């Protein structure tokens, strides 16, 4: 089957009244979340998981995906207008975006952000459509050993690209892997690490962990910060939204570069929107002519990262859909959503359920169109949302988290898990440990164990199979290279610090 007939299937799935509605709901909620600082898209996806139980797998993925890339759009709005990134990937947009707003060019900044996101989204959707099928074909030939090593590579990537200390990130992955092993062992039926609690036999509630870490812990953290600085938000005047033709012409190369970079980085494990936008801004600063304008309201400084974060958000679906390996916590949650629906994402699912895969691809494009329509004319409405005080917002977040966690199993015990993980998440935030690698570890833990076990079963207990299989060896080497590359500068800076003392 060629790509066009596949896309036709996809649009057939996506363009039903029902799925269009879910797609719209998704991007709408995503924009909302993106605009409101203090709620991360991961937490939103986690909170809305229970909403998707009654939906078909395709509809639920379409909606969750919409939330994710919708948030990339929304985040830029607050970044430009009030200098607060609504979402972490919009941090770089504040630099030039807010500078433009101060010069009275907030309108064009918002316009170019939306336009470049749209262009990037369209191209990234094509990339997903073109590259996923061959990748899935390759993935079907993977042996268990290859899979195991691929996951090692994925986790190392997540560690390397995480902010902050590498060692902490590794520790978080390990902790996540361990937590993933809680519950009944698939092969032997033995219940592990359950502390005699029958409710833990089915493993740790993934939703409880994600909501605790990303939802409740953030709320606690924010409340604390808020007491410290409670500033009145000054909103810049928006004015004309459409950028001029000259602006557009100036931006096109930046958009193209941003898209390419974002699409590439999105595929990498641990990549996605955040890294893409930072990288795009840095590259743009080096490549573009008259770089000294950057930081003082250069429109290209808005276009490139906005294009990149949107492209990255979309291509990060590729490893999730084709390999079943999540590249960031949001993708991990989507895998969770699919598994609740009884679908194990990966090459099998992709080839057996083309409607699902192509439906999502098609919905991405439609979602981008919705976003353009939602954002350009309605900017004023979104901005007004910023006036909602946090003291009204946080009880709502808490309540949705509680309902969400409870309704997955209708078990109050899951709420106690939520409490435990909220406390843990808060501690980790305080200690500067990122919860993202932990969540990836949690999802991959059982899978890695399973693949390792199978690999060793096939090789009759010979661990060298991990090195003798060429693909597996390649992944392991790549992981090693990544680790070393990050370790070297780390050693260097540590030495420098030591020298100074």
């Amino acid at each position, binding site marked *: 089957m060629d790509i066009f007939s596949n896309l036709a299937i996809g649009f057939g799935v996506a363009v039903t009244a029902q799925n269009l509605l879910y797609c719209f709901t998704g991007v709408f909620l995503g924009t909302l979340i993106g605009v409101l600082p203090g709620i991360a898209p991961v937490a939103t996806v986690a909170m809305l998981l229970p909403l998707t139980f009654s939906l078909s797998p395709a509809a639920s993925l379409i909606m969750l995906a919409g939330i994710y890339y919708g948030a990339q759009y929304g985040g830029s709005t607050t970044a430009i207008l009030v200098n607060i990134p609504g979402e972490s990937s919009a941090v770089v947009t504040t630099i030039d975006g807010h500078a433009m707003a101060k010069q009275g060019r907030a309108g064009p900044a918002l316009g170019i952000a939306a336009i470049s996101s749209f262009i990037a989204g369209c191209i990234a959707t094509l990339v997903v459509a073109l590259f996923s099928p061959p990748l899935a074909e390759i993935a079907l030939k993977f042996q268990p050993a290859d899979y195991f090593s691929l996951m090692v590579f994925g986790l190392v990537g997540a560690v390397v690209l995480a902010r902050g200390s590498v060692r902490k990130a590794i520790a978080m992955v*390990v902790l996540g892997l361990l937590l993933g092993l809680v519950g009944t*062992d698939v092969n032997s039926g033995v219940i592990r690490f359950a502390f005699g609690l029958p409710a833990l036999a089915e493993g740790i509630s993934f939703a409880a962990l994600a909501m605790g870490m990303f939802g409740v812990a953030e709320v606690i953290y924010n*409340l604390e910060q808020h*007491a410290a600085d409670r500033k009145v938000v000054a909103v810049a005047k928006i004015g004309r939204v459409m950028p001029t033709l000259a602006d557009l012409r100036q931006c096109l190369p930046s958009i193209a570069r941003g898209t390419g970079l974002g699409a590439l980085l999105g595929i990498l494990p641990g990549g996605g929107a955040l890294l893409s936008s930072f990288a795009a801004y840095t590259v743009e600063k080096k490549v573009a002519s008259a770089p000294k304008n950057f930081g003082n309201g250069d429109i290209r400084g808005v276009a490139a990262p906005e294009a990149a974060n949107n492209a990255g958000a979309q291509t990060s679906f590729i490893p999730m859909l084709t390999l079943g390996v999540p590249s960031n916590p949001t993708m991990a949650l989507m895998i969770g959503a699919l598994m609740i629906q009884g679908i194990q994402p990966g090459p099998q699912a992709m080839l057996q359920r083309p409607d699902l895969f192509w439906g999502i691809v098609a919905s991405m494009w439609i979602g981008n169109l919705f976003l353009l329509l939602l954002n350009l004319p309605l900017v004023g409405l979104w901005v007004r949302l910023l006036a909602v005080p946090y003291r009204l917002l946080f009880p709502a977040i*808490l309540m949705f988290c509680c309902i969400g966690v409870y309704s997955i199993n209708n078990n109050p015990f899951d*709420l106690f898990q939520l409490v435990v993980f909220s406390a843990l998440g808060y501690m980790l935030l305080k200690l500067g440990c990122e919860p993202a690698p932990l969540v990836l570890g949690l999802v991959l833990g059982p899978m890695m164990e399973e693949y390792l076990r199978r690999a060793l079963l096939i090789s009759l207990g010979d661990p060298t199979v991990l090195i003798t299989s060429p693909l597996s060896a390649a992944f392991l080497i790549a992981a090693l290279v990544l680790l070393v590359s990050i370790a070297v500068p780390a050693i260097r800076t540590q030495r420098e610090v030591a020298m100074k003392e």
Partner: protein
Amino acid sequence: MVLARNYRLGTPARMGPGFFPTILGGLLAALGLSLTIPALVRDGDPLPGFGLRPLLAILVGIVVFALLLAPLGFVIAAAALILIAGLAEPELRRLEQLGLTLFLIAFSVAIFVVMLGLPLNLWPNI
């Protein structure tokens, strides 16, 4: 850096057979240890202060919600959750909070129970 890493070592005794899980668990525990010891030895910045008020208010709120949900139903449990969690905010505004509570309960009941049909008990079971 960080000193308080000890909880990571708390791997409980591995239960039952399962050869590979044991190896894997042991490996992971060893890795955790090797990460912890340097962190303990190194000098570090003092731990940042913990804001107890929001932490306690919110966690207690969720616990109470969990305890009340089954016997007293969603409406009462949710009200308790919002009111207790509201204590995290120093500038308490009674009236506003009451309105918010009513609104949120009505909103969640409408979406989750009426529209999505989640099996939640709304009122006390007698």
